[in-house]
């Protein structure tokens, strides 16, 4: 009966015998790489099996890891959000530091340019009342600051120190109603006095009616009052009007944007006028 089955299935038997012979031959013949063909084929097939199994296991592992990972995603997401917020804050701090550094660099450049003994100061406060336009800086008498010392910025004149304390000082802005500075129109050398108007504009007074002043002229300090060094920019002439008297009514736009001021330089070197005044007193 078994023999009959084998006879009926001679095709399968034929294939089996052929396969056996192929395997037998492959075991004896080396491939081009010097490895027996049977070994190479077996390894090739087995490696594919390994690859398939490994791929399957990796897929299962990925799915499992993803499932497990989902349980920690929320906590991780919250932590990442917290870190992102901290990084954003740090970035803003760094950007602020960079801006401050650029400001200090500009001040340093000005300091080297004017050849004056100055002290860099940071603006730490504003005016306590809107009627008095002042600023507070972080330098005081410990740093050599005294009353009536000029405060300047890279763009131009800021004001003068009115109340110094040990570690800070109050600066009266040039725009304050009580502030004034001797001024010269740079182009024509026409002299006058710049006074604060309590707003964001200055008034240049005591300029002769016949003086050549036009809008756009640059107004600089004259140093005559003994507070501000000579030649520092105050601003530009915005309007020139005839007042009907011997003097012109001139509006000056300050060169310094006081609203965005963050650093300033305090001029420690006495102006010639002040030195002369001190010499007279002595």
């Amino acid at each position: 009966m078994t023999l009959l089955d084998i006879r009926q299935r001679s095709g399968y038997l034929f294939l089996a015998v052929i396969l056996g012979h192929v395997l037998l031959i492959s075991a004896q013949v080396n491939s081009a790489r010097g490895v027996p063909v049977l070994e190479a084929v077996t390894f090739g097939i087995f490696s594919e099996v390994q690859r398939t199994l490994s791929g399957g296991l990796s897929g299962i592992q990925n799915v499992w890891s993803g499932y497990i990972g989902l349980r920690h995603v929320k906590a991780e997401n919250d932590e990442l959000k917290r870190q992102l917020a901290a990084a954003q804050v740090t970035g803003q701090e760094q950007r602020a530091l960079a801006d401050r550094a650029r400001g200090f660099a500009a001040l340093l450049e000005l300091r080297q340019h004017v050849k004056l003994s100055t002290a860099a100061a940071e603006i730490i406060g504003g005016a306590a009342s809107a009627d008095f336009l002042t600023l507070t800086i972080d330098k005081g008498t410990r740093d050599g600051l005294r009353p009536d010392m000029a405060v300047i910025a890279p763009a131009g004149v800021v004001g003068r120190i009115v109340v110094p304390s040990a570690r800070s000082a109050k600066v009266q802005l040039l725009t304050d109603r009580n502030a004034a500075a001797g001024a010269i129109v740079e182009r024509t050398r026409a002299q006058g006095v710049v006074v604060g108007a309590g707003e964001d504009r200055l008034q240049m007074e005591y300029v002769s009616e016949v003086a050549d002043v036009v809008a756009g002229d640059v107004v600089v300090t004259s140093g005559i009052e003994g507070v501000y060094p000579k030649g520092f920019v105050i601003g530009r002439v915005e309007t020139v009007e005839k007042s009907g008297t011997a003097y012109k009514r001139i509006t000056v736009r300050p060169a310094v944007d006081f609203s965005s001021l963050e650093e300033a330089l305090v001029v420690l070197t006495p102006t010639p006028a002040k030195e002369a005044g001190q010499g007279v007193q002595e």
Partner: protein
Amino acid sequence: MRAAGVILAVSAALALQTTLARFLVRGAITVDLVLVVVVYVALSAGPTTGLLTGAFAGLVQDALSSNIIGIGGLSKTIVGFLAGIIGTQFIVTQPLPRFVVFFGGTVLHAVVFMGLYMLLDLRQFGSPYGAVTGQATANAVVGVVAFQLVELLPGAVERRRAAKTRLRR
């Protein structure tokens, strides 16, 4: 019983092939007695016995020679199987069809045998057409003769016995 007869036939063919080889070689014409036995068994007993006979005979022949073991076995397995198929599907009782089957079996054996060697880059055979044709013819002749002898031999014995009986009467 049939298996023992197959083994005996293959062994006898191998013995003759190995001991009488120098007498069988005539120039380029050689006879593969083992292959003749395989085709003979396949035609007589069918594809299963044919392929098993071919596998066994070829493996033994390979083992006794310096060949790769399996190439001869594979070749003779294919020939034995196909010859068995032909023997069961067609009427192969006349000398000419038998001649064709032996001839074709030898050619097929040569194609597979040499093809495998060349495919595996183990040996080059040049232009073996003449040798293959001569061997196929010789195998076919030997095979057809073997068939005729085996088929005529039992009748001859009976006819001789019958003649002796008539002479005694």
